[in-house]
C-alpha cells in the first residue's frame, strides 16, 4: 500500500466536500426558511394577539364607559324623580294645612253653635246619652265614656275629609 499523492486525495475527496457543502447549504437554506417562517408566524401570532388585546381593551373601555354613562343617567333620573315627588308631597301637605286652617275658621262662623249641636248629637248616638262631651279649644268636640271615645275635633274632621278626597288631590299636579 502506498500513500496517495496529495492531489489524488484532493480529487478523491472533492465529491465528498461538494456533497457536504451542498448539504450544509441546503440545511442552512431550510433552517433559514424555517426560521423565517417561524418568525413570520410568531409575528403574525403576536400581531393577532395584540389586535385581540386591543379589541378586548376597546370593548372593555366601551362597556365601562357605557356603564358609567348609564350610572350618571340613572343618578340624574333618580334625582329628578325625587324632586318631582318631593314637590308633589309638599303640595299635598300644603293642601292639608290650608284645608285644616279653613275648617278651623268655622269656629268664628255664625252657625258654629249648630255645628256643635249636630256633633254632640252624633257622639251621643255612638256613645249613649251619658257621654261626657268636651268642647275642644281648637274647635269641635271630644266625647268620652269609660273605655271609649269619639274624636269630633275640627282637625280630625278635616283630616278625615281629606283622606276621603283621595285621588282628587292628584289634580294639584296633574298636567
Amino acid at each position, binding site marked *: 500500500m502506498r500513500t496517495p499523492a496529495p492531489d489524488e486525495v484532493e480529487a478523491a475527496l472533492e465529491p465528498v466536500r461538494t456533497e457536504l457543502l451542498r448539504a450544509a447549504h441546503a440545511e442552512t437554506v431550510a433552517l433559514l426558511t424555517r426560521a423565517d417562517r417561524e418568525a413570520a408566524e410568531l409575528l403574525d401570532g403576536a400581531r393577532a394577539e395584540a389586535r*385581540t388585546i386591543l379589541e378586548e381593551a376597546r370593548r372593555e373601555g366601551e362597556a365601562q364607559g357605557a356603564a358609567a354613562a348609564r350610572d350618571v343617567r340613572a343618578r340624574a333620573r333618580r334625582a329628578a*324623580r325625587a324632586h318631582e315627588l318631593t314637590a308633589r308631597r309638599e303640595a299635598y301637605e300644603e293642601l292639608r294645612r290650608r284645608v285644616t286652617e279653613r275648617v278651623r275658621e268655622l269656629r268664628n262662623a255664625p252657625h258654629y253653635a249648630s255645628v256643635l249641636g249636630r*256633633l254632640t248629637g252624633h257622639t251621643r248616638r255612638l256613645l249613649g246619652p251619658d257621654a261626657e262631651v268636651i268642647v275642644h279649644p281648637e274647635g269641635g268636640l271630644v266625647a268620652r265614656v269609660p273605655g271609649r271615645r*269619639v274624636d269630633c275635633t275640627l282637625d280630625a274632621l278635616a283630616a278625615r275629609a281629606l283622606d*276621603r278626597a283621595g285621588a282628587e288631590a292628584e289634580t294639584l299636579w296633574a298636567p
Partner: protein
Amino acid sequence: MSDDCRSASSIWGDVEYTAIRELRGPLAVVEGVTGVGWDEFVRITLESGEQRHGLVLEVDRGLAVVQVLEDTTGMDPRGIRVAFTGGPLRIPVGPGWLGRVCNGRGDPIDGGPPVFGHTSVAVGGSPINPLRREPPSEPVLTGVGAVDALTTLVRGQKLPVFSTAGLPHLELAAQIAAQSTAGGESFSVVFAGMGLTHPDASFVRDALEERSAAGELVLLLNTADDPVIERILTPRLALTIAEELAFTSGRHVLVVMSDMTSYAEALREVSAARGEIPARRAYPGYLYSDLASLYERCGRLRGRPGSVTVLPVLTMPAGDITHPVPDLTGYITEGQIVLSRETHALGVYPPVDALSSLSRLMRKGAGPGRTRADHLDIAAQLLAALARARQVRELADLVGEAALSPTDRRHLVFEEAFLRRFVDQRRDQSRPLDQTLETAWQVLLTLPRSQLSMLPAALLDAHGAREDPGAEEEDSGENSERSMEYGERSMEYDERGAVE
C-alpha cells in the same frame, strides 16, 4: 297608609277604644269592643299623635286581640286610641302606583305623597271563579336565555325560582323584572321584596331604576328589620295592585316576589304569637293554603284584557328541596327554575340547573305562532343531550375521559359549550329570543348529526349539521378563544417542524 279605611270609616268620626288590657310583643288586647270582626283593619293613635296600624287576630266576647304591624314598642297603654275600620285592609288601586317605591305596607318611601287611586280594594283579594279563568298562553320573554329557551314563562303562569343562600337569585329576579317584555304589549312589573337586607334593597332599586323611571314598575320593599307582620301583607298588596293593573287597565303584569321563605318565616312567627299548633318544622298547618291563596291569584280572566304572572323566588334552607316551603310551593306552582351551586361554582351566570328546571306550561307559550317554530324541538334536544352528557360525566368519573367513545367525548364538549356559550350571560344583558335560539343551534352543532335525532332533518340541513363537527372546528379554526386558537396553531407548526 292614610286612606286604607276611607270607605269604611265615617267622616264624622267613629268610636275609638281606649281600654287596653295588655300590650305583649306585637299584640294589643283591647277591652269592651262590640261589632268587631276577624281580620278587621285597625288604626291605632298614640298619645303623641303617631299612627300605627294593626289587624284583628281574635275576638272573644268584648275582647279583641290586635296585631300591631309596627310592633308595640314605645306604646303606653294608657294613651292609646284604637279605631276599628269595619273591614279588612283596603288599599287604593290604579296606575298611581306605577313608578312609586313603597315599604311593605304600601307607605311611600320615595319622598312622595301617599299613593292615590279612584277605587279601593281589599288586599285579601277574592278567589277567581274557575270557570272565568282563561288558560295561560303567550310567553313573557325575560331576556335571560336559559329561562326563555328551556323554561319559557307563560302569561298567567306561576313559576318559582328555587335557590339556596349565596346564589344570585336576587340578581336573576331583578334582571328578569328589569328586562321582561310581552311582545310589545303593555307590560308592568310589581316587585315585592320581603326580608331584604339594606344592601339588597338598594341593589334592587338600582337595578330597576330604568323601569321605574319609565312608569312600568311598582316596587314594594320590606327590609329585614321591618316589622315581621308587614311581610305578610307585602305579597298581598303586590297582587292587589297587579290585579287592578292587569284586569282593569289591560296590562300584562309580572309579579316578582322575593324571598318567599322569608314570608313563610313571618307567617310562622305570627302563628307562634297566636299560639297555634305548629305543623312541619313549626310552620303553621295552613302554610299550603296560605301560599295557594297568593299563588292562585295569578292568571287570565275570560273577557278581560291583561294577565298576572307570578315569579316567586324562594331559598331552600340548606339546599333542602323537601323543606316545607319549596315542597308546598312545588305542589301549587306550574314548574320551577332551580339554581345550582355547582354551576355557580363554575362561574356561570345565571346558574340554572336546566335538568331540574321545568315550565309545565311551556307548550302553551312557546313554539310555532308564539315564539319560533323550532323552539320546542331545540329545547327538547338540548335537554336530551344534556341528560346524556350528565351520564357520560358520571361514567368518565369512573373510567376516565380517555376511555370514553368519541361520541361520549363530544357530549362533554357539548356540555361545556352549553354552560359557557348558551347559559352564561351578563347580568345586564337582555338576550333576544332569536339570538338565544341561534346560540342554542351553535351549541347543538358541536354534537354529531346522528346525535340530534329530535330535530327535523330539514332544520339540520339548513343549519349544516355534520357527522364530524370536531373536524369542522379544526378546519375552520374558528374558536371563540382566540388566544387558545393561536396556541393550538403554533403547536401544530412545532410538530410539522419536527417532522421536517
